């Protein structure tokens, strides 16, 4: 299922340029450990490129969790009924908890949580594109809980097989909680899909608007660069974007179709011979436009975070005790 990019020992030479500053003996030891299926811990020696990439990946993941809490968080007071309010509140709290767990894991690589938050607020860091779209109706919230979290699960279960110990530990806890997110989302989604004609129309409308961002979720097809191959060998990148998209379609399209709902792509079908899903290419220009800051809500999302940070700073300062200072956490 994993590691479709194979690199034979003869091909290994292509990495020479990327690794020329690394101690060959330590590098060999590091690679042996990964080949044996052992995890890398923060105080182990690791190549610069590994440290940089793992940090970047966990950091972006953490940012996606806190920004991802915004579209749903604002719906808590408007969720229909007490039970759905309770569920949504629990889910949103989990997402903030995920951000905390992930920031902790990233911190072990030497960047502090506050430095990461600075970069997010400065617009220097990326987070998942899907959260730059608005949740216009309650049906959007049901769809997010079901289909966005489903994408997150595929991504996280895949990454949980990776090589960096603290990330793996954080993901184990996160995946457990995601199962509840998916279930409560599916429940809300099915309630609308099996409800009155107006409710069905609402969920169908949400699907029509969200299908493209969902097809963007795993990113454009990878160009398999030397870089990508090395990260695959080091178990940082555990699957290609297209592989994850296929798993996603395989698991969730039938769950949408079984409710008699449609998806706005006439080309979408599973080829019975290859077992692969075919679909029309989503608009990748739009994807890049949004990721570079020009989506429907990029500005609002960051402004809300900046507002929260600014208005919470006095609490941070009031509680600050100078006698104990920050050290890098080690697990």
């Amino acid at each position, binding site marked *: 299922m994993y590691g479709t990019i194979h690199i034979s020992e003869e091909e290994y030479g292509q990495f020479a340029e990327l690794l020329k500053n690394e101690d060959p003996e330590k590098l060999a030891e590091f690679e042996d450990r990964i080949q044996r299926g052992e995890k890398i811990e923060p105080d182990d020696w690791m190549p610069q490129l590994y440290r940089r990439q793992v940090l970047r990946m966990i950091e972006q993941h953490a940012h996606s969790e806190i920004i991802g809490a915004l579209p749903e968080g604002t719906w808590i007071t408007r969720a229909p009924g007490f039970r759905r309010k309770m569920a949504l509140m629990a889910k949103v709290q989990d997402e903030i908890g995920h951000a*905390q767990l992930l920031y902790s894991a990233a911190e072990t690589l030497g960047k502090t949580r506050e430095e990461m938050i600075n970069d997010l*607020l400065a617009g220097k860091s990326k987070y998942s594109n899907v959260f730059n779209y608005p949740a216009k109706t309650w049906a959007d919230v049901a769809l997010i809980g079901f289909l966005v979290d489903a994408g997150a699960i595929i991504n996280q279960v895949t990454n949980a097989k990776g090589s960096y110990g603290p990330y793996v530990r954080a993901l184990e806890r996160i995946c457990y909680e995601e199962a509840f997110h998916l279930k409560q989302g599916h429940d809300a989604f099915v309630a609308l899909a099996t409800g009155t004609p107006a409710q069905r129309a609402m969920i169908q409308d949400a699907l029509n608007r969200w299908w493209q961002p969902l097809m963007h979720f795993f990113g454009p097809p990878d160009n398999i660069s030397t870089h990508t191959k090395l990260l695959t060998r080091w178990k940082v990148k555990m699957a290609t974007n297209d592989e994850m998209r296929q798993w996603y379609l395989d698991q969730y399209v039938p769950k949408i179709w079984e409710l008699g709902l449609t998806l706005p792509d006439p080309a979408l079908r599973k080829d019975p011979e290859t077992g692969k899903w075919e679909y029309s290419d989503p608009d990748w220009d739009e994807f890049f436009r949004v990721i570079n800051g020009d989506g429907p809500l990029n500005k609002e999302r960051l402004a809300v975070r900046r507002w929260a940070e600014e208005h919470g700073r006095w609490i941070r300062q009031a509680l600050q005790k100078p006698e104990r200072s920050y050290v890098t956490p080690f697990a």
Partner: protein
Amino acid sequence: MKIISLDPRVERLEFREEHWQPQRPLTAGEQWPTYEVFHMKKRGTQPVHVGIVHAPTPEMALAFAKEQYARRGTTVRLWVVPSDQVYATSPEDEAIFATTPEKIHREPFAYKVKEKIERYKKSQKK
């Protein structure tokens, strides 16, 4: 510039011009220290390390630990220890433990008493 949001809560926030721009970044001094969190699930079991929290005081660390690590399932106790108070062996020291699994003379299964008794009994019957 006023933000036009679908979200009534965002509409009510009074954004000013500077919210469109990054603000003064947080400084190193504004970073709270971290605490290592230990969680006991059931009476009679070991407390287990589950992760860290950022907190200005141990009391706050316990409050955050409750929110972060005790949202589901059972909990009987939480412990927090300042991260800078933990001493650990280094990765180079891992070799010290490498041969421990081979020290089977410390294990009960290394002693095959029953076989010896059986052999003895057989020899007595002859």
